[in-house]
């Protein structure tokens, strides 16, 4: 597993060319050209116990052209690779959907078959290419949807489309700075002058805290992934953690909130191939928790019935070794299962709207986090 940092200028392009040369060499030797990539299935996802993130194991998959079952996929993979090299050469970016449309054409006048019929086919191969070449899709000039907003004391140097823009995240008003798809290539984060990063599950809560200028009062960076964190958002959190900022996650106390947290912390099964580059094991869970019910009496009345899915998810989480190893989480999850209750972060606005800030400050002070 290779540590992927921001692409050095031209590194991804070099990798693509190297792949091409290797295949041409195989053909010259009369061998079937083959493409090797780590297996992305669940069976090959491992948990790094010491560091605390998910990554891909050693299982590999070989795709070779002269095997009828693999020929098409092989040819498609190379078509994707060639197209990505073109994007690099042209210094243009697109989405995986844009790539799909670039590759959706018939294979020949007399062939009733298209290179790609469905976007899912090309999406899959983009991931194969990422894994195989040890690059991120953003390195291949493929953007993902932007999702997530930031505010706080930091600046971004964004070299884009031949321009260079300096963005001050303290001056983004009510909307904040939207996290782009790629925070590595052509992006530089400077003057990061915060004490910690607060990741807030819901956009509404972020807006509440932004209105309170919580980031200014607390000298922190507030980030909302707006639900599940996008790759760019996760990558940004990772980069901020790399700058030695503590990461605190403020989520609902329910299945979805936990899931978002653990994805940020350990990475997800689907993106296990990105390994530690997209995981932030240092992240802590600040709330809300079942334990809060004891500390804040009013919350007891503001719980809602846990849904089937919440209970099930809690039970599942007890089964994950990387969660079960933390007795705090075991206690938390068992309480949920027992009480069949859940708690939303919005409930903290019960007494007054500004209570959220008070709650966070107090938690921070007491260092009451779940690992």
């Amino acid at each position, binding site marked *: 597993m290779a540590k992927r940092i921001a692409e050095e200028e031209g590194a991804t392009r070099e990798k*693509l*060319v190297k*792949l*091409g*040369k290797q*295949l*041409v060499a195989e*053909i*010259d030797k*009369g061998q*079937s*050209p083959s493409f090797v990539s780590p297996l992305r299935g669940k069976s090959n996802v491992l948990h790094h116990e010491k560091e605390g993130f998910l990554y891909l194991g050693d299982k590999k998959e070989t795709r070779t*052209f*002269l*095997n*009828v*079952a*693999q*020929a*098409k996929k*092989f*040819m498609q993979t*190379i*078509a994707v*690779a*060639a197209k990505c*090299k*073109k994007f690099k050469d042209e210094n243009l970016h697109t989405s995986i959907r844009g790539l799909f449309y670039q590759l959706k054409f018939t*294979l*020949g006048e007399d*062939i009733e*078959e298209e*290179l790609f019929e469905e976007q899912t086919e090309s999406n899959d191969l983009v991931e194969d290419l990422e894994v195989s070449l040890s690059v991120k899709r953003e390195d291949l000039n493929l953007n993902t949807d932007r999702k997530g907003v930031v505010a706080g004391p930091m600046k971004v140097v964004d070299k884009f489309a031949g321009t260079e823009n300096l963005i001050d995240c303290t001056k983004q008003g009510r909307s904040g700075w939207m996290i782009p798809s790629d925070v590595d290539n052509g992006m530089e984060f400077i003057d990061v002058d915060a004490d910690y990063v607060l990741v807030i599950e819901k956009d509404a809560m972020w807006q509440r805290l932004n209105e309170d200028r919580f980031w200014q009062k607390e000298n922190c960076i507030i980030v909302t992934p707006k639900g599940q964190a996008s790759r760019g958002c996760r990558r940004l959190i990772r980069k901020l953690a790399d700058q030695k900022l503590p990461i605190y996650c403020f989520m609902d106390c329910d299945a979805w909130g936990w899931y978002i947290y653990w994805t940020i912390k350990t990475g997800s099964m689907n993106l296990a191939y990105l390994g530690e580059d997209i995981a932030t094991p240092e992240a802590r869970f600040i709330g809300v928790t079942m334990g809060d019910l004891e500390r804040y009496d009013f919350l007891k009345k503001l719980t809602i019935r846990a849904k089937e899915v919440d209970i099930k998810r809690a039970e599942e989480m007890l089964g994950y070794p990387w969660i079960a190893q933390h007795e705090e989480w075991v206690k938390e999850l068992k309480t949920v299962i027992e009480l069949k209750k859940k708690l939303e972060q919005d409930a903290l606005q019960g007494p007054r709207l500004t209570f959220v800030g008070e709650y966070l400050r107090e938690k921070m002070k007491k260092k009451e986090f779940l690992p």
Partner: protein
Amino acid sequence: MTEEKKPEAKAKTETKPEAKAKTEAKVEAKAETKRVESGEIFEEFREHSVAEFFKKNRQMLGFAGKVRSMTTLVHEFVTNSLDACEEAKILPNIYVKIDEMENGHYKLYVEDNGPGIPKQYVGKALGQMLAGTKFHRFIQQRGQQGIGAAGGVMFAQITTGKPAHARSGTGDGKVYECDISVDLKNNQPKISNMVDFPGNYRGLTVTAEFSEVKYDKSEYAPFEYLKATALANPHSQITIVEPNGERTVFARASNEIPKRPTPAQPHPLGVTTDDMINYAHHSKERKLSSFLTQNFARVSDAKVDEIKQLCPGTNFDKMPRELKWEEAEAIVKAFKQIKWIAPSADPLRPIGKNQIEKALKNVLVPEFISVSERSPKVYRGGVPFLVEVGIAYGGKSGHSTKDGGVGLDVKRFANRAPLLFDAGGCATMEAVKTIDWNRYGLKNVDQMPITLYMNVVSVFIPYTGAGKQAITAEEEVVEELRYAVMEVARDLERYLSGKIRDEQRETRKKAIMRYVKQLAGDLPYLSGESNDKDIEKKLLSMIEHKYSKIFEKTRLTADEEKQQQKERDEEIEE
């Protein structure tokens, strides 16, 4: 045994022949009944002429049902020609033309290049029933009933009232033409309008007009009959022009004229009551006892004494022609109780593997042929026979099914003569029915273009009835046929599995081929090396090599075979 059928069946035969003629299927289904009828045929010889008898009982000689009658007519004339050619060592060229006339009658025209008939014999050859030489000769015959061409002439006469027309020459520069009919009362030929003229024609041409016949293209019809005849006689060239003008040539596949079968006396174990009556009534011997020793192989005076002991009610000093059905039956039964020296297998004349292959290739243009090669066996404890089974796959093999597809076609022959009728009770079908086709990967044999060619060769074919259209399912014969069918089925299986493998390879090859252009275009760009033409060429040659047909390769070594099997297994798993 059919011989044991008794008088109650006989009584049935006295119903109106016309009624029976209408119910051809019924008559055919009751092959056993017919056996008794044929016994009766010869009893009646004493009172009526053969011709008279024929007139009344024509259905028993194959003139039952309009289509079957047509086929029988073609059969009689064509067989006549084939035999004549064979005897004269001539490669037969036979031309058959059938015209439908405006009044619904049909005109049949059969021309051959045989030796021709000397003028003085033409009457006897075409205008007298049972006058041919074949009837009394104990050789491996094409299986006709002995009524021959004269039967056809008579059929014309009784259905249209018109004589047949013959034209013949022996190649001596003289040709004659005449009209021929049969004096039904006396079974004597009537010749009229004889014309002589100079000419080099050698052969016989018979033209006759018939009604109560019908031409169609069913499996019982003349076309199929001639096709089958061509299959059994690769040395012949047969042309048929159908009423719609369509002309089909079953071209000669071989220049090898079959060897004449050597005459052989019947062996007691191969004789039916029917045969016994037949032979006895035509015997020139004065005593039944001498008839037995003179006409049958391995019958000595000592054996006759044994027979006498077993048949106390029969006078062995009487004229053979006075032999009654019951007595003949008793003698045949006695034959079976006596130990005999087995008959000689020498007279067997198989068509031969090579010839059958040529015939199948020629007529069916199949993809694959396999023909069994088996040695003679004996049935009924001593009658020698041998079977020849061929299988043809693809091309024109198989026959059309009702749903428009093609299915298994069984072409049955007895001593080269096609058997078109009474398939149900035939030993050949019995053998085919009991084959477990699944074992040979031929599960859907009813939907595959397969022709099974089955020829039973014997001096004494155990026909089920007088129509001689089916072979009795003698255990040994059926068993032998089964083995032969299994032998060729195995070969076909081997071919098909190879073919299926080739088809799979071909499909795979094509599947990969369609991706070559795209890949060959992308790689030079991706790598910055090489060019698309070069890569395309190399990829194509790799694919060609990997997915080439196995049959096109030189023989694989055991290791290569193993490797290929492994690759196939892997691909299947994927």
